[in-house]
């Protein structure tokens, strides 16, 4: 916004207050998106209709904050071989989605590297095989095995350390990629801790 124009409209004191408020707002937003506090149950609100439509047609449109910009760019650069499926998009769409991700990506990659050891030690019960199933863990030919996965990051294990290993294999859960199995608001980017519903073993497939 044009600073000079605001100055004309608002008296000086109000202008100062508005500037302070906008700085405070930016700090709060910055903390939510970049600081990684999302995992404590805040809404991962950054959503975009095109992101929801393009990425949400085959699976949940995962909130961009769940991976780092570097990880997303690896995903975006391998879309024709996206976990064994052709998910290619046209150049314009690719460019727009890439810009959206660059703006709203989280810090997943950095966290993963820094505290990998600590995370593993604290979450002995949760292993990639338990979360993703042995079939999913074994990459099939054509799968880019080295692609970053949300479900193998350290924060994922840490956040889910209290989930029983058997829960991941329930027919209504089928692995860690199906966020909405336990987070009913996942499609809206809502992972609030007071809104978690873990299915019980006796439950029928949803």
């Amino acid at each position, binding site marked *: *916004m044009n600073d000079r*124009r605001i100055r004309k*409209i608002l008296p000086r004191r109000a202008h100062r207050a508005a500037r302070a408020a906008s700085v405070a707002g930016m700090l709060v937003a910055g903390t939510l998106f970049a600081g990684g506090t999302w995992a404590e149950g805040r809404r991962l609100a950054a959503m975009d209709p095109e992101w929801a439509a393009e990425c949400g*047609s*085959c*699976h*949940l449109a995962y909130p961009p904050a769940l991976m780092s910009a570097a990880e997303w760019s690896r995903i975006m650069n391998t879309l*024709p071989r996206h*976990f*064994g*499926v*052709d*998910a*290619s*998009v*046209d150049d314009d769409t690719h460019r727009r989605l890439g810009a959206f991700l660059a703006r709203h990506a989280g810090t997943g990659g950095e966290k993963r590297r820094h505290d990998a050891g600590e995370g593993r030690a604290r979450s002995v019960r949760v292993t990639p095989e338990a979360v993703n199933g042995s079939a999913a863990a074994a990459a099939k030919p054509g799968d880019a095995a080295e692609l970053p996965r949300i479900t193998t990051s350290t924060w994922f294990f840490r956040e889910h350390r209290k989930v029983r290993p058997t829960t991941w294999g329930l027919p209504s859960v*089928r692995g860690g*990629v*199906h966020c909405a199995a336990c987070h009913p608001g996942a499609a809206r980017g809502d992972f609030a801790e007071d809104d978690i519903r873990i299915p019980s073993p006796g439950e029928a497939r949803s």
Partner: protein
Amino acid sequence: MRITPQLWRFALPATLVLLPLAVPARAGTPADIAARLEAVARQADPAFAGFSAARGASFFTATHGGEWSCASCHTARPVGDGRHAKTGKVIAPLAPAANAERFTSVAKVDKWFRRNCNDVMGRECTAREKGDVLAWLTSLRNAE
């Protein structure tokens, strides 16, 4: 109403956001899309004698030497919901009789044929293959 700079600050972004909504996306009907495919098929093969729903039906359920068929995700009679073979996400019906949105956008049709043929066949489908499948899908009726 006086147009002040303040008004422009709101009016201009609002116009930019709303304008694309007023212009209809490149729309079509299943018949338009079939006609388009037919033109390409005829160009590729001068002896082309029209699309076949029967050929489309068997094409749709065949695995073509791979792991999946179209029916793996869309079911063998796509007037009902399908389910993504990999992610389990529900896929809305593909037959226009059951889902009026299907085959109304050229861009969407092109995108999904490109991706899905690649997954099932390991190559893009020909215009004849696409037209056959479309002929079969448009022949399907809800109640049977």
